């Protein structure tokens, strides 16, 4: 295992992108930083700029307005990076399936600009913080 991958696993900094979530998934993400789960133990840190991030936590169906922004944020992220689709909406449109404003699940939008993107799915409505931690662990162990 090269030093790059090893250090990436030990300190994944995440950036949170909301592309039209109902805000419940976001609350669960913030839960991860609270004393009960405290993901800083594993070096996971929430950062304020996609340029510092190693993982994008995308929540929500991608709306028509949000799609180009999501692609732009993905382009601005310094590679290597992992995309996490958090919640049923982000994985497969969830309850907004036939909405007029929905253009697609997260993976489709990201793959439009980078077919080789690494995408991890954490289903649930909203997913439990435990499920998110387990998703992060599984995604990083495939690197």
């Amino acid at each position, binding site marked *: 295992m090269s*030093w*790059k991958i090893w*250090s*990436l696993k*030990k*300190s994944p*900094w995440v950036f949170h992108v909301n592309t039209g979530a109902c805000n419940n998934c976001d609350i669960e993400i913030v839960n991860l930083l609270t*004393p009960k789960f*405290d993901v*800083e*133990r594993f*070096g996971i840190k929430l*950062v*304020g*700029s996609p*340029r*510092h991030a*190693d993982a994008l936590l995308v929540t929500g169906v991608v709306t028509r307005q949000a799609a180009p922004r999501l692609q732009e944020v993905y382009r*601005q992220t*310094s*590679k*290597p990076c992992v995309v996490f689709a958090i919640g049923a909406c982000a994985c497969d449109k969830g309850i907004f399936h036939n909405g007029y404003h929905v253009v697609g699940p997260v993976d489709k939008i990201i793959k439009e600009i980078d077919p080789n993107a690494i995408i991890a799915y954490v289903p649930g409505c909203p997913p439990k913080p435990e499920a998110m931690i387990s998703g992060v662990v599984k995604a990083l162990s495939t690197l």
Partner: protein
Amino acid sequence: MTEVLQNLFWILIFPGFLFTACFGLIACWIVRKVSALVQWRVGPPFYQPFVDVIKLMGKEILVPQQAQRTVFLTAPLVGLAGLLLLSTMLWRITIEPTVPFVGDVIVAIYLMALPSLALILGSSASASPHAAVGTSREMKLVMSYELPLVMAFIVVIIKSGGQLSLATLAQQTPALSISGMLAFLVSLLCIQAKLGFVPFDIAEAETELGSGVLMEYSGALLAVWKLIQAMMLVAMPLFLVIMFLGGFGTSGMSLVWGICKYVLILVLMILIKNTNPRVRIDQAMKFFWIYCGIVLAVAILLATIGDCYGINWL
């Protein structure tokens, strides 16, 4: 030839880069760990800041399209160079008090300003609106804390009878007098602002500005900034120890004592950091210029009176 090698060794390895960076990253861990404990969390393992820097070294460097490339890319190196000189100077004076030259206090004060100036240059070259707001805040912050900081050092210089060399200043402990104590407290707050810690993290303001001044930096350049921040965490408290608390010994008890002084300043900063909300830029300016200014005017007056009549405790 050997002298050149010796100097290189000093700058790059022992008291300079390698040593200060490792020391600084451990100090960074202490800051994060103590903050976590204050918030009832567990906090990161001790190697976390090292891994962060290593990881950033391996990431892609993105340069914004409209950025002024040369300035954007060289600014972190300028800041690092200034800080490297400052920390080498401070450690050398601590280890070997015979080497300094007269007036090194003034050089040190100039070098202390260099990382902030490099930060302003680098972020304003990045052509990002968030970074622009951060830059203007950082500039105002620098203007507001530099004056009280220099005034606080003037108190120390008056108390020592006009000495301008760090080695002689390190022999005294002005913090044991009233004016020295006031100056010490004010300079502690100025250092807080210099390090960009809450309540003076106005320029980085994660919640409003992304990461403000550092927003556009990625990969190895960001790693350099992280190293600069870590090294500042060593150099600035060390400077305060030398100026106010009687310096850092190198043997036996005085070494332990020196480390205690350093840790005292670090813990005070962490506690201020964790018990205060962020202030607005106008509040910070008012705080530094008016309140700290008045306190320091009193301190200078007391120090002058004490110096004239030979009263040491004033």
